[in-house]
Protein backbone atom coordinates (compact mmCIF):
# COMPACT_ATOMS: atom_id res chain seq x y z
CA UNK A 1 0.00 0.00 0.00
CA UNK A 2 1.26 3.45 -0.84
CA UNK A 3 1.74 6.16 1.77
CA UNK A 4 -1.20 8.32 2.70
CA UNK A 5 -0.99 11.85 1.35
CA UNK A 6 -4.12 13.35 2.83
CA UNK A 7 -6.97 12.08 4.93
CA UNK A 8 -10.20 14.05 4.91
CA UNK A 9 -12.86 13.00 7.37
CA UNK A 10 -16.30 14.29 8.15
CA UNK A 11 -15.67 17.58 6.35
CA UNK A 12 -18.74 19.77 6.65
CA UNK A 13 -19.18 23.22 5.12
CA UNK A 14 -22.09 25.47 5.94
CA UNK A 15 -23.28 28.17 3.63
CA UNK A 16 -24.96 31.24 5.09
CA UNK A 17 -27.03 33.21 2.60
CA UNK A 18 -30.07 35.45 2.72
CA UNK A 19 -32.11 32.32 1.94
CA UNK A 20 -30.86 30.61 5.08
CA UNK A 21 -28.12 28.33 6.26
CA UNK A 22 -27.43 25.00 4.63
CA UNK A 23 -24.77 22.34 4.32
CA UNK A 24 -23.10 22.54 0.93
CA UNK A 25 -20.62 19.84 1.98
CA UNK A 26 -21.92 17.29 4.45
CA UNK A 27 -19.58 14.86 6.19
CA UNK A 28 -17.23 14.23 3.27
CA UNK A 29 -14.45 11.69 3.92
CA UNK A 30 -11.78 10.29 1.62
CA UNK A 31 -8.13 9.31 1.64
CA UNK A 32 -5.69 10.33 -1.08
CA UNK A 33 -2.52 8.25 -1.47
CA UNK A 34 0.87 9.49 -2.61
CA UNK A 35 1.56 8.84 -6.28
CA UNK A 36 -2.11 8.08 -6.92
CA UNK A 37 -5.10 9.96 -8.31
CA UNK A 38 -8.39 10.17 -6.50
CA UNK A 39 -11.25 11.47 -8.60
CA UNK A 40 -14.02 13.48 -6.98
CA UNK A 41 -16.90 12.99 -9.40
CA UNK A 42 -20.26 14.70 -9.42
CA UNK A 43 -22.75 16.94 -11.19
CA UNK A 44 -22.40 20.70 -11.27
CA UNK A 45 -23.30 22.23 -7.91
CA UNK A 46 -22.83 19.09 -5.81
CA UNK A 47 -20.10 20.77 -3.72
CA UNK A 48 -16.84 19.66 -5.34
CA UNK A 49 -15.22 23.07 -5.47
CA UNK A 50 -16.51 23.91 -2.01
CA UNK A 51 -14.79 20.77 -0.71
CA UNK A 52 -11.54 21.77 -2.40
CA UNK A 53 -11.68 25.34 -1.10
CA UNK A 54 -12.41 24.12 2.42
CA UNK A 55 -9.35 21.86 2.30
CA UNK A 56 -7.03 24.64 1.17
CA UNK A 57 -8.64 27.12 3.56
CA UNK A 58 -9.82 29.56 0.91
CA UNK A 59 -13.60 29.46 1.26
CA UNK A 60 -15.63 32.55 0.37
CA UNK A 61 -16.75 34.51 3.44
CA UNK A 62 -20.30 33.14 3.17
CA UNK A 63 -19.07 29.58 3.68
CA UNK A 64 -17.38 28.11 6.71
CA UNK A 65 -16.16 24.72 7.88
CA UNK A 66 -18.25 23.51 10.81
CA UNK A 67 -16.87 20.00 11.32
CA UNK A 68 -14.27 17.52 10.17
CA UNK A 69 -10.54 17.24 9.82
CA UNK A 70 -7.95 17.28 7.04
CA UNK A 71 -4.84 15.35 8.05
CA UNK A 72 -1.66 15.97 6.07
CA UNK A 73 1.70 14.87 7.46
CA UNK A 74 0.33 14.46 10.96
CA UNK A 75 -1.21 17.92 11.10
CA UNK A 76 -4.89 18.82 10.97
CA UNK A 77 -5.07 21.65 8.44
CA UNK A 78 -8.36 22.81 9.89
CA UNK A 79 -6.80 23.34 13.31
CA UNK A 80 -3.46 24.97 12.53
CA UNK A 81 -2.90 28.74 12.73
CA UNK A 82 -3.27 30.96 9.68
CA UNK A 83 0.46 31.47 9.62
CA UNK A 84 1.14 27.74 9.64
CA UNK A 85 -1.42 27.32 6.86
CA UNK A 86 0.45 29.81 4.70
CA UNK A 87 3.67 27.93 5.37
CA UNK A 88 2.05 24.72 4.17
CA UNK A 89 0.42 26.33 1.11
CA UNK A 90 2.78 25.39 -1.68
CA UNK A 91 5.36 23.03 -0.20
CA UNK A 92 2.79 20.62 1.27
CA UNK A 93 -0.59 21.28 -0.28
CA UNK A 94 -1.32 22.97 -3.60
CA UNK A 95 -4.37 23.62 -5.72
CA UNK A 96 -5.16 24.36 -9.35
CA UNK A 97 -8.42 26.31 -9.40
CA UNK A 98 -11.34 25.89 -11.73
CA UNK A 99 -11.04 29.24 -13.55
CA UNK A 100 -7.95 28.59 -15.67
CA UNK A 101 -8.49 31.64 -17.85
CA UNK A 102 -8.69 34.24 -15.09
CA UNK A 103 -6.47 32.70 -12.44
CA UNK A 104 -3.29 34.45 -13.53
CA UNK A 105 -2.83 38.07 -12.50
CA UNK A 106 -3.30 40.10 -15.71
CA UNK A 107 -0.89 42.90 -14.73
CA UNK A 108 2.06 40.80 -13.58
CA UNK A 109 4.57 39.07 -15.84
CA UNK A 110 4.13 35.30 -15.78
CA UNK A 111 7.77 34.94 -14.69
CA UNK A 112 7.08 37.05 -11.63
CA UNK A 113 4.08 34.92 -10.74
CA UNK A 114 5.95 31.65 -11.29
CA UNK A 115 8.80 32.90 -9.13
CA UNK A 116 6.51 33.73 -6.23
CA UNK A 117 6.50 30.33 -4.53
CA UNK A 118 10.31 30.46 -4.34
CA UNK A 119 10.30 34.08 -3.22
CA UNK A 120 7.70 33.48 -0.52
CA UNK A 121 8.78 30.15 0.89
CA UNK A 122 12.51 30.03 0.25
CA UNK A 123 13.25 33.78 0.26
CA UNK A 124 15.17 33.17 -2.94
CA UNK A 125 16.82 36.22 -4.57
CA UNK A 126 14.89 37.55 -7.57
CA UNK A 127 17.48 36.48 -10.14
CA UNK A 128 17.60 32.87 -9.02
CA UNK A 129 13.83 32.68 -8.67
CA UNK A 130 13.52 33.93 -12.23
CA UNK A 131 15.88 31.21 -13.44
CA UNK A 132 13.74 28.70 -11.54
CA UNK A 133 10.64 30.10 -13.24
CA UNK A 134 12.21 29.59 -16.66
CA UNK A 135 13.13 26.05 -15.70
CA UNK A 136 9.55 25.42 -14.56
CA UNK A 137 8.13 26.77 -17.80
CA UNK A 138 10.37 24.52 -19.83
CA UNK A 139 9.42 21.58 -17.66
CA UNK A 140 5.69 21.97 -18.28
CA UNK A 141 6.21 22.33 -22.00
CA UNK A 142 6.10 26.08 -22.68
CA UNK A 143 8.16 26.74 -25.81
CA UNK A 144 10.96 29.34 -25.66
CA UNK A 145 10.66 29.99 -21.92
CA UNK A 146 13.63 32.41 -21.87
CA UNK A 147 11.79 34.93 -24.02
CA UNK A 148 8.30 34.22 -22.73
CA UNK A 149 9.12 34.59 -19.06
CA UNK A 150 8.57 38.35 -19.39
CA UNK A 151 5.24 38.03 -21.20
CA UNK A 152 1.88 38.74 -19.65
CA UNK A 153 -0.92 36.17 -19.22
CA UNK A 154 -3.04 37.51 -22.09
CA UNK A 155 -0.23 36.62 -24.47
CA UNK A 156 -0.74 32.89 -23.78
CA UNK A 157 -3.42 30.50 -25.02
CA UNK A 158 -5.83 28.86 -22.58
CA UNK A 159 -3.89 25.60 -22.61
CA UNK A 160 -0.59 27.40 -21.97
CA UNK A 161 -2.14 29.36 -19.14
CA UNK A 162 -3.31 26.14 -17.52
CA UNK A 163 0.24 24.78 -17.89
CA UNK A 164 1.57 27.87 -16.15
CA UNK A 165 -0.91 27.45 -13.30
CA UNK A 166 -0.02 23.81 -12.88
CA UNK A 167 3.67 24.69 -12.95
CA UNK A 168 3.09 27.26 -10.22
CA UNK A 169 1.20 24.72 -8.12
CA UNK A 170 3.92 22.07 -8.31
CA UNK A 171 6.86 24.50 -8.01
CA UNK A 172 7.68 23.41 -4.47
CA UNK A 173 6.91 19.75 -5.08
CA UNK A 174 3.83 19.47 -2.83
CA UNK A 175 2.71 16.22 -1.26
CA UNK A 176 -0.90 16.80 -2.22
CA UNK A 177 -2.24 18.51 -5.33
CA UNK A 178 -5.91 19.33 -5.80
CA UNK A 179 -6.91 19.97 -9.41
CA UNK A 180 -10.41 21.44 -9.72
CA UNK A 181 -11.75 20.64 -13.19
CA UNK A 182 -8.38 21.43 -14.77
CA UNK A 183 -9.59 20.84 -18.31
CA UNK A 184 -13.18 22.12 -18.36
CA UNK A 185 -12.29 25.56 -19.73
CA UNK A 186 -10.07 24.13 -22.48
CA UNK A 187 -10.42 22.81 -26.03
CA UNK A 188 -10.91 19.08 -26.27
CA UNK A 189 -7.59 18.64 -28.06
CA UNK A 190 -5.71 20.38 -25.24
CA UNK A 191 -7.47 18.46 -22.47
CA UNK A 192 -5.56 15.22 -23.03
CA UNK A 193 -2.21 17.06 -22.98
CA UNK A 194 -3.01 18.75 -19.68
CA UNK A 195 -4.08 15.45 -18.11
CA UNK A 196 -0.90 13.79 -19.37
CA UNK A 197 1.15 16.62 -17.85
CA UNK A 198 -0.62 16.16 -14.51
CA UNK A 199 0.07 12.42 -14.58
CA UNK A 200 3.74 13.01 -15.39
CA UNK A 201 4.13 15.51 -12.54
CA UNK A 202 2.29 13.22 -10.13
CA UNK A 203 4.83 10.50 -10.78
CA UNK A 204 7.84 12.81 -10.64
CA UNK A 205 6.86 14.39 -7.33
CA UNK A 206 5.08 11.34 -5.91
CA UNK A 207 2.06 13.58 -5.25
CA UNK A 208 -1.35 12.55 -4.06
CA UNK A 209 -3.64 14.07 -6.69
CA UNK A 210 -7.28 14.88 -6.04
CA UNK A 211 -8.81 15.33 -9.47
CA UNK A 212 -12.17 17.07 -9.43
CA UNK A 213 -14.26 16.40 -12.50
CA UNK A 214 -17.71 15.73 -13.88
CA UNK A 215 -16.29 13.71 -16.74
CA UNK A 216 -16.63 9.93 -16.50
CA UNK A 217 -14.09 9.34 -19.26
CA UNK A 218 -11.48 11.38 -17.41
CA UNK A 219 -12.12 9.34 -14.25
CA UNK A 220 -11.80 6.08 -16.17
CA UNK A 221 -8.51 7.12 -17.77
CA UNK A 222 -6.76 9.04 -15.01
CA UNK A 223 -7.93 7.92 -11.59
CA UNK A 224 -7.11 5.01 -9.30
CA UNK A 225 -9.92 5.71 -6.85
CA UNK A 226 -13.22 7.47 -7.36
CA UNK A 227 -15.50 9.19 -4.87
CA UNK A 228 -18.95 9.93 -6.25
CA UNK A 229 -20.53 13.02 -4.76
CA UNK A 230 -24.19 13.93 -4.68
CA UNK A 231 -25.80 16.91 -2.98
CA UNK A 232 -22.77 17.59 -0.76
CA UNK A 233 -22.23 13.99 0.28
CA UNK A 234 -20.13 11.11 -0.94
CA UNK A 235 -22.52 8.36 -2.00
CA UNK A 236 -20.08 5.77 -3.28
CA UNK A 237 -16.34 5.33 -3.31
CA UNK A 238 -13.84 2.64 -4.26
CA UNK A 239 -11.25 1.65 -6.86
CA UNK A 240 -12.26 3.01 -10.27
CA UNK A 241 -12.27 -0.30 -12.09
CA UNK A 242 -14.45 -1.94 -9.43
CA UNK A 243 -16.90 0.91 -9.16
CA UNK A 244 -17.23 1.24 -12.92
CA UNK A 245 -17.50 -2.51 -13.37
CA UNK A 246 -20.06 -2.99 -10.62
CA UNK A 247 -21.63 0.26 -9.41
CA UNK A 248 -23.65 -0.24 -6.23
CA UNK A 249 -25.30 3.11 -5.71
CA UNK A 250 -28.29 3.81 -7.96
CA UNK A 251 -26.84 7.24 -8.75
CA UNK A 252 -23.50 5.81 -9.89
CA UNK A 253 -25.33 3.24 -11.91
CA UNK A 254 -27.48 5.94 -13.50
CA UNK A 255 -24.39 7.87 -14.44
CA UNK A 256 -22.66 4.90 -15.99
CA UNK A 257 -25.77 3.77 -17.86
CA UNK A 258 -26.33 7.20 -19.33
CA UNK A 259 -22.88 7.77 -20.80
CA UNK A 260 -20.86 5.33 -22.90
CA UNK A 261 -17.57 5.77 -21.02
CA UNK A 262 -15.18 4.80 -23.81
CA UNK A 263 -16.43 7.16 -26.44
CA UNK A 264 -17.63 10.41 -24.98
CA UNK A 265 -15.01 12.47 -23.24
CA UNK A 266 -16.46 15.72 -22.03
CA UNK A 267 -20.05 14.52 -21.83
CA UNK A 268 -22.00 16.15 -19.02
CA UNK A 269 -23.56 14.21 -16.18
CA UNK A 270 -27.00 15.53 -16.85
CA UNK A 271 -28.69 12.65 -18.57
CA UNK A 272 -30.40 11.23 -15.50
CA UNK A 273 -33.99 12.53 -15.43
CA UNK A 274 -34.71 15.12 -12.75
CA UNK A 275 -32.37 17.45 -10.89
CA UNK A 276 -30.51 17.38 -7.57
CA UNK A 277 -32.50 18.78 -4.63
CA UNK A 278 -32.45 22.50 -3.95
CA UNK A 279 -29.63 23.18 -1.51
CA UNK A 280 -32.06 24.95 0.81
CA UNK A 281 -34.70 22.25 0.68
CA UNK A 282 -32.83 18.97 1.00
CA UNK A 283 -35.43 16.40 2.06
CA UNK A 284 -34.90 14.20 5.09
CA UNK A 285 -33.62 10.76 4.25
CA UNK A 286 -31.68 10.02 1.09
CA UNK A 287 -30.90 13.09 -1.08
CA UNK A 288 -31.27 10.98 -4.23
CA UNK A 289 -34.83 9.81 -3.43
CA UNK A 290 -36.58 12.05 -5.97
CA UNK A 291 -34.62 10.60 -8.89
CA UNK A 292 -34.04 7.06 -7.65
CA UNK A 293 -35.84 4.24 -9.47
CA UNK A 294 -35.55 1.99 -6.39
CA UNK A 295 -36.84 4.42 -3.78
CA UNK A 296 -38.57 2.83 -0.76
CA UNK A 297 -40.31 4.25 2.31
CA UNK A 298 -37.17 3.81 4.38
CA UNK A 299 -35.28 6.11 1.94
CA UNK A 300 -37.60 9.01 2.79
CA UNK A 301 -37.41 8.40 6.51
CA UNK A 302 -33.78 7.63 7.19
CA UNK A 303 -30.61 8.99 5.80
CA UNK A 304 -28.36 6.19 4.49
CA UNK A 305 -24.82 6.31 5.95
CA UNK A 306 -21.71 5.62 3.89
CA UNK A 307 -21.06 2.04 4.95
CA UNK A 308 -18.23 -0.22 3.91
CA UNK A 309 -19.06 -3.74 2.88
CA UNK A 310 -16.41 -5.92 1.26
CA UNK A 311 -14.06 -3.03 0.52
CA UNK A 312 -16.76 -0.93 -1.11
CA UNK A 313 -18.36 2.06 0.55
CA UNK A 314 -21.90 2.98 -0.47
CA UNK A 315 -24.56 5.21 1.04
CA UNK A 316 -27.78 3.46 0.10
CA UNK A 317 -30.32 1.45 2.06
CA UNK A 318 -30.63 -1.04 -0.74
CA UNK A 319 -26.96 -1.29 -1.64
CA UNK A 320 -26.63 -4.89 -0.53
CA UNK A 321 -29.69 -5.91 -2.46
CA UNK A 322 -28.20 -4.51 -5.64
CA UNK A 323 -24.78 -6.02 -5.12
CA UNK A 324 -25.41 -9.32 -6.84
Amino acid at each position, binding site marked *: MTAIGMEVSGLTVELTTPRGTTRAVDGVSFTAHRGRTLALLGESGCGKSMTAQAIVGLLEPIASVTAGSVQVDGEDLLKVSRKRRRQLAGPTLSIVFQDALTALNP*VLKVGTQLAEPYRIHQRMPAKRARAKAIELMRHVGIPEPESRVDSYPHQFSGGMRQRLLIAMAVALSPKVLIADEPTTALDVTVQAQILALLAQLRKEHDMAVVLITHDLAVVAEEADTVAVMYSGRIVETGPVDEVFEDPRHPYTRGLLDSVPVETERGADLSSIPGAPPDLFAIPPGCPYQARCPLVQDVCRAERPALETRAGRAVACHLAEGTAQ
Partner: protein
Amino acid sequence: MLTFLRRRVLTSLLPLLAVVLGVFVLARLTGNPTALYLPENATAQAREQFSAANGFDKPIWSQLLDYLSGVVRLDFGTSLRTGESAAVMALRAFPATLQLAAVTMLLACLVGTAVGCWAALRPNGLADRVSSLLSMTAASVPDFWLAILGIWVFAIMLGVLPTSGVDAGGLSWVLPIAVLMLRPAGVLTQVVRGAMISALGSPYVKVARSKGAGERRVVARHALKNAAPPALTVAGDLAVGLINGAVVVESIFGWPGIGKLLIDAILQRDFAVLQAAVAITAISIFVLNIAIDIGYALLDARVRQKVGAAA
Protein backbone atom coordinates in the same frame (compact mmCIF):
# COMPACT_ATOMS: atom_id res chain seq x y z
CA MET B 1 5.65 52.77 -26.97
CA LEU B 2 6.75 55.57 -29.31
CA THR B 3 3.86 55.08 -31.73
CA PHE B 4 1.62 54.95 -28.69
CA LEU B 5 2.93 58.27 -27.42
CA ARG B 6 2.67 59.98 -30.79
CA ARG B 7 -0.95 58.87 -31.04
CA ARG B 8 -1.86 60.19 -27.62
CA VAL B 9 -0.14 63.50 -28.24
CA LEU B 10 -2.01 63.94 -31.50
CA THR B 11 -5.41 63.11 -30.03
CA SER B 12 -4.85 65.32 -27.00
CA LEU B 13 -3.68 68.22 -29.18
CA LEU B 14 -7.15 68.63 -30.63
CA PRO B 15 -8.87 69.81 -27.44
CA LEU B 16 -5.90 72.08 -26.75
CA LEU B 17 -6.28 73.68 -30.17
CA ALA B 18 -10.01 74.00 -29.57
CA VAL B 19 -9.42 75.94 -26.35
CA VAL B 20 -6.83 78.23 -27.94
CA LEU B 21 -9.15 78.98 -30.88
CA GLY B 22 -12.11 79.26 -28.52
CA VAL B 23 -10.43 82.02 -26.57
CA PHE B 24 -9.77 83.93 -29.78
CA VAL B 25 -13.32 83.51 -31.04
CA LEU B 26 -14.79 84.51 -27.68
CA ALA B 27 -12.65 87.60 -27.54
CA ARG B 28 -13.69 88.60 -31.06
CA LEU B 29 -17.30 87.46 -30.83
CA THR B 30 -18.27 90.56 -28.95
CA GLY B 31 -17.33 92.65 -31.96
CA ASN B 32 -14.31 94.87 -32.07
CA PRO B 33 -12.54 94.28 -28.76
CA THR B 34 -11.73 97.97 -28.57
CA ALA B 35 -15.12 98.56 -27.00
CA LEU B 36 -14.29 96.04 -24.33
CA TYR B 37 -10.73 97.12 -23.71
CA LEU B 38 -11.23 100.89 -23.59
CA PRO B 39 -13.42 102.81 -21.18
CA GLU B 40 -16.89 103.97 -22.32
CA ASN B 41 -15.88 107.60 -22.68
CA ALA B 42 -12.79 107.06 -24.85
CA THR B 43 -12.48 109.38 -27.86
CA ALA B 44 -12.82 108.11 -31.42
CA GLN B 45 -9.17 108.93 -31.98
CA ALA B 46 -8.09 106.91 -29.00
CA ARG B 47 -10.17 104.02 -30.26
CA GLU B 48 -8.55 104.11 -33.69
CA GLN B 49 -5.12 104.32 -32.19
CA PHE B 50 -5.84 101.37 -29.94
CA SER B 51 -7.26 99.37 -32.85
CA ALA B 52 -4.22 99.97 -34.98
CA ALA B 53 -1.78 99.28 -32.17
CA ASN B 54 -3.37 95.92 -31.48
CA GLY B 55 -4.00 95.07 -35.12
CA PHE B 56 -7.78 95.05 -34.76
CA ASP B 57 -8.14 96.97 -38.01
CA LYS B 58 -6.67 94.08 -40.00
CA PRO B 59 -8.90 91.41 -41.60
CA ILE B 60 -9.97 88.68 -39.19
CA TRP B 61 -7.83 85.87 -40.70
CA SER B 62 -4.73 87.99 -40.40
CA GLN B 63 -5.64 88.71 -36.76
CA LEU B 64 -6.00 85.00 -36.21
CA LEU B 65 -2.55 84.37 -37.69
CA ASP B 66 -1.06 87.06 -35.47
CA TYR B 67 -2.80 85.59 -32.47
CA LEU B 68 -1.67 82.04 -33.24
CA SER B 69 1.93 83.03 -33.85
CA GLY B 70 1.73 84.88 -30.54
CA VAL B 71 0.44 81.76 -28.80
CA VAL B 72 3.25 79.69 -30.23
CA ARG B 73 5.75 82.21 -28.89
CA LEU B 74 3.74 82.39 -25.67
CA ASP B 75 3.10 86.06 -26.43
CA PHE B 76 -0.41 87.17 -25.55
CA GLY B 77 0.26 90.89 -25.59
CA THR B 78 0.54 93.11 -22.54
CA SER B 79 -1.70 93.52 -19.56
CA LEU B 80 -3.93 96.57 -19.79
CA ARG B 81 -3.65 97.08 -16.07
CA THR B 82 0.06 96.68 -15.41
CA GLY B 83 1.55 97.02 -18.89
CA GLU B 84 3.51 93.86 -18.19
CA SER B 85 3.65 90.92 -20.59
CA ALA B 86 0.54 88.80 -19.95
CA ALA B 87 2.49 85.59 -20.49
CA VAL B 88 5.06 86.57 -17.88
CA MET B 89 2.29 87.31 -15.39
CA ALA B 90 0.64 83.97 -16.06
CA LEU B 91 3.91 82.07 -15.84
CA ARG B 92 4.75 83.82 -12.59
CA ALA B 93 1.41 82.80 -11.07
CA PHE B 94 1.51 79.27 -12.41
CA PRO B 95 4.00 77.64 -9.97
CA ALA B 96 1.86 78.65 -6.98
CA THR B 97 -1.14 76.84 -8.48
CA LEU B 98 0.98 73.91 -9.54
CA GLN B 99 2.39 73.49 -6.04
CA LEU B 100 -1.03 73.74 -4.46
CA ALA B 101 -2.54 71.28 -6.94
CA ALA B 102 0.36 68.83 -6.76
CA VAL B 103 0.46 68.70 -2.97
CA THR B 104 -3.32 68.42 -2.81
CA MET B 105 -3.43 65.63 -5.38
CA LEU B 106 -0.58 63.75 -3.75
CA LEU B 107 -2.27 63.89 -0.36
CA ALA B 108 -5.64 62.99 -1.87
CA CYS B 109 -4.09 59.95 -3.58
CA LEU B 110 -2.35 58.81 -0.41
CA VAL B 111 -5.45 59.24 1.73
CA GLY B 112 -7.74 57.75 -0.92
CA THR B 113 -5.53 54.69 -1.41
CA ALA B 114 -4.98 54.06 2.29
CA VAL B 115 -8.58 54.54 3.39
CA GLY B 116 -9.94 52.80 0.27
CA CYS B 117 -7.78 49.72 0.91
CA TRP B 118 -8.67 49.69 4.56
CA ALA B 119 -12.38 49.90 3.78
CA ALA B 120 -12.07 47.18 1.11
CA LEU B 121 -10.35 44.79 3.49
CA ARG B 122 -13.29 45.01 5.88
CA PRO B 123 -16.37 45.87 3.83
CA ASN B 124 -19.16 47.26 6.01
CA GLY B 125 -16.73 47.67 8.88
CA LEU B 126 -16.37 50.90 10.81
CA ALA B 127 -13.72 52.36 8.48
CA ASP B 128 -15.92 51.56 5.50
CA ARG B 129 -19.02 53.23 6.92
CA VAL B 130 -17.26 56.33 8.19
CA SER B 131 -15.35 56.83 4.94
CA SER B 132 -18.49 56.37 2.83
CA LEU B 133 -20.32 58.98 4.86
CA LEU B 134 -17.42 61.42 4.62
CA SER B 135 -16.97 60.91 0.88
CA MET B 136 -20.64 61.47 0.26
CA THR B 137 -20.62 64.65 2.34
CA ALA B 138 -17.49 65.89 0.59
CA ALA B 139 -19.04 65.30 -2.81
CA SER B 140 -22.18 67.26 -2.03
CA VAL B 141 -20.79 70.32 -0.24
CA PRO B 142 -19.57 73.18 -2.46
CA ASP B 143 -15.93 74.24 -2.19
CA PHE B 144 -16.63 77.88 -1.36
CA TRP B 145 -18.87 76.90 1.53
CA LEU B 146 -16.20 74.62 2.97
CA ALA B 147 -13.60 77.31 2.49
CA ILE B 148 -15.68 79.87 4.36
CA LEU B 149 -16.53 77.37 7.09
CA GLY B 150 -12.84 76.54 7.44
CA ILE B 151 -11.85 80.17 7.73
CA TRP B 152 -14.60 80.83 10.24
CA VAL B 153 -13.72 77.89 12.49
CA PHE B 154 -9.93 77.74 12.31
CA ALA B 155 -8.94 81.30 11.52
CA ILE B 156 -11.59 83.36 13.24
CA MET B 157 -12.95 81.24 16.11
CA LEU B 158 -9.85 79.26 17.03
CA GLY B 159 -7.33 81.65 15.54
CA VAL B 160 -4.86 78.85 14.79
CA LEU B 161 -4.63 79.35 11.02
CA PRO B 162 -4.29 82.44 8.81
CA THR B 163 -7.40 83.66 6.97
CA SER B 164 -5.59 84.15 3.68
CA GLY B 165 -2.31 84.78 1.91
CA VAL B 166 0.95 82.85 1.91
CA ASP B 167 2.87 84.78 4.54
CA ALA B 168 2.35 82.34 7.38
CA GLY B 169 4.60 79.67 5.83
CA GLY B 170 3.47 76.08 6.25
CA LEU B 171 0.29 77.10 8.07
CA SER B 172 -0.96 79.01 5.02
CA TRP B 173 -1.12 75.72 3.17
CA VAL B 174 -3.39 73.95 5.61
CA LEU B 175 -6.81 75.42 4.82
CA PRO B 176 -6.52 75.70 1.02
CA ILE B 177 -5.24 72.13 0.79
CA ALA B 178 -7.81 70.78 3.22
CA VAL B 179 -10.65 72.40 1.29
CA LEU B 180 -9.29 71.38 -2.12
CA MET B 181 -8.43 67.79 -1.26
CA LEU B 182 -11.63 66.80 0.47
CA ARG B 183 -13.57 65.97 -2.67
CA PRO B 184 -10.75 64.22 -4.57
CA ALA B 185 -9.82 62.23 -1.48
CA GLY B 186 -13.44 61.18 -0.98
CA VAL B 187 -13.96 60.19 -4.60
CA LEU B 188 -10.64 58.33 -4.74
CA THR B 189 -11.46 56.47 -1.54
CA GLN B 190 -14.67 55.17 -3.09
CA VAL B 191 -12.98 54.28 -6.39
CA VAL B 192 -10.07 52.50 -4.71
CA ARG B 193 -12.48 50.72 -2.37
CA GLY B 194 -14.61 49.43 -5.25
CA ALA B 195 -11.64 48.39 -7.37
CA MET B 196 -9.95 46.71 -4.40
CA ILE B 197 -13.06 44.77 -3.41
CA SER B 198 -13.37 43.38 -6.91
CA ALA B 199 -9.63 42.66 -7.12
CA LEU B 200 -9.55 40.96 -3.73
CA GLY B 201 -12.42 38.69 -4.76
CA SER B 202 -10.81 37.71 -8.06
CA PRO B 203 -9.45 34.29 -8.94
CA TYR B 204 -5.85 35.52 -9.19
CA VAL B 205 -5.93 36.72 -5.59
CA LYS B 206 -7.16 33.29 -4.56
CA VAL B 207 -4.28 31.76 -6.48
CA ALA B 208 -1.81 34.11 -4.78
CA ARG B 209 -3.17 33.08 -1.40
CA SER B 210 -2.93 29.41 -2.36
CA LYS B 211 0.80 30.00 -2.92
CA GLY B 212 1.11 31.11 0.68
CA ALA B 213 1.24 34.85 -0.03
CA GLY B 214 0.69 36.96 3.08
CA GLU B 215 -1.89 39.72 3.34
CA ARG B 216 0.63 42.44 2.56
CA ARG B 217 1.82 40.80 -0.63
CA VAL B 218 -1.75 40.05 -1.72
CA VAL B 219 -2.89 43.63 -1.21
CA ALA B 220 0.16 45.52 -2.42
CA ARG B 221 1.38 43.35 -5.24
CA HIS B 222 -1.65 41.55 -6.58
CA ALA B 223 -4.75 43.59 -5.82
CA LEU B 224 -3.51 47.18 -5.75
CA LYS B 225 -1.74 46.91 -9.07
CA ASN B 226 -5.01 45.84 -10.65
CA ALA B 227 -6.96 48.56 -8.89
CA ALA B 228 -4.51 51.27 -9.98
CA PRO B 229 -5.62 51.85 -13.60
CA PRO B 230 -9.25 52.78 -12.80
CA ALA B 231 -8.08 54.89 -9.86
CA LEU B 232 -5.56 56.65 -12.10
CA THR B 233 -8.22 57.54 -14.66
CA VAL B 234 -10.40 59.06 -11.98
CA ALA B 235 -7.41 60.82 -10.39
CA GLY B 236 -6.69 62.42 -13.76
CA ASP B 237 -10.22 63.78 -14.06
CA LEU B 238 -10.04 64.99 -10.48
CA ALA B 239 -6.76 66.77 -11.15
CA VAL B 240 -8.37 68.60 -14.07
CA GLY B 241 -11.29 69.48 -11.82
CA LEU B 242 -8.83 70.66 -9.20
CA ILE B 243 -7.53 73.32 -11.57
CA ASN B 244 -11.09 74.60 -11.84
CA GLY B 245 -11.58 74.34 -8.10
CA ALA B 246 -8.39 76.32 -7.61
CA VAL B 247 -10.04 79.39 -9.16
CA VAL B 248 -12.54 79.58 -6.31
CA VAL B 249 -10.27 78.47 -3.51
CA GLU B 250 -7.38 80.70 -4.58
CA SER B 251 -9.64 83.73 -4.68
CA ILE B 252 -11.05 83.04 -1.23
CA PHE B 253 -7.70 82.32 0.35
CA GLY B 254 -5.78 84.98 -1.57
CA TRP B 255 -3.49 82.36 -3.02
CA PRO B 256 -1.36 84.08 -5.70
CA GLY B 257 -1.93 81.45 -8.39
CA ILE B 258 -3.40 81.21 -11.86
CA GLY B 259 -6.93 80.95 -10.51
CA LYS B 260 -6.73 84.25 -8.70
CA LEU B 261 -5.08 85.82 -11.74
CA LEU B 262 -7.93 84.55 -13.91
CA ILE B 263 -10.65 85.98 -11.66
CA ASP B 264 -8.83 89.30 -11.33
CA ALA B 265 -8.39 89.46 -15.11
CA ILE B 266 -12.08 88.81 -15.68
CA LEU B 267 -13.12 91.45 -13.16
CA GLN B 268 -10.79 94.00 -14.73
CA ARG B 269 -11.51 93.04 -18.36
CA ASP B 270 -7.81 92.36 -18.83
CA PHE B 271 -8.23 90.21 -21.92
CA ALA B 272 -4.56 89.58 -22.64
CA VAL B 273 -4.00 88.21 -19.16
CA LEU B 274 -7.22 86.20 -19.34
CA GLN B 275 -6.06 84.60 -22.61
CA ALA B 276 -2.65 83.85 -21.20
CA ALA B 277 -4.11 82.29 -18.05
CA VAL B 278 -6.60 80.16 -19.98
CA ALA B 279 -3.93 79.03 -22.43
CA ILE B 280 -1.49 78.05 -19.73
CA THR B 281 -4.24 76.15 -17.93
CA ALA B 282 -5.17 74.34 -21.15
CA ILE B 283 -1.53 73.47 -21.81
CA SER B 284 -1.10 72.07 -18.32
CA ILE B 285 -4.25 69.96 -18.70
CA PHE B 286 -2.88 68.73 -22.02
CA VAL B 287 0.40 67.71 -20.42
CA LEU B 288 -1.50 66.11 -17.55
CA ASN B 289 -3.60 63.99 -19.91
CA ILE B 290 -0.50 62.72 -21.69
CA ALA B 291 1.10 61.87 -18.37
CA ILE B 292 -2.01 59.94 -17.30
CA ASP B 293 -2.03 57.96 -20.53
CA ILE B 294 1.63 57.10 -20.16
CA GLY B 295 1.05 56.01 -16.57
CA TYR B 296 -1.91 53.93 -17.68
CA ALA B 297 0.13 52.15 -20.32
CA LEU B 298 3.02 51.56 -17.93
CA LEU B 299 0.61 49.96 -15.46
CA ASP B 300 -1.14 47.65 -17.84
CA ALA B 301 0.54 45.69 -20.61
CA ARG B 302 -2.81 45.04 -22.28
CA VAL B 303 -3.39 48.76 -22.87
CA ARG B 304 0.11 49.09 -24.34
CA GLN B 305 -0.53 46.28 -26.74
CA LYS B 306 -4.03 47.32 -27.74
CA VAL B 307 -3.09 50.91 -28.46
CA GLY B 308 0.10 49.80 -30.18
CA ALA B 309 -1.87 47.47 -32.43
CA ALA B 310 -4.45 50.12 -33.28
CA ALA B 311 -1.82 52.74 -34.13
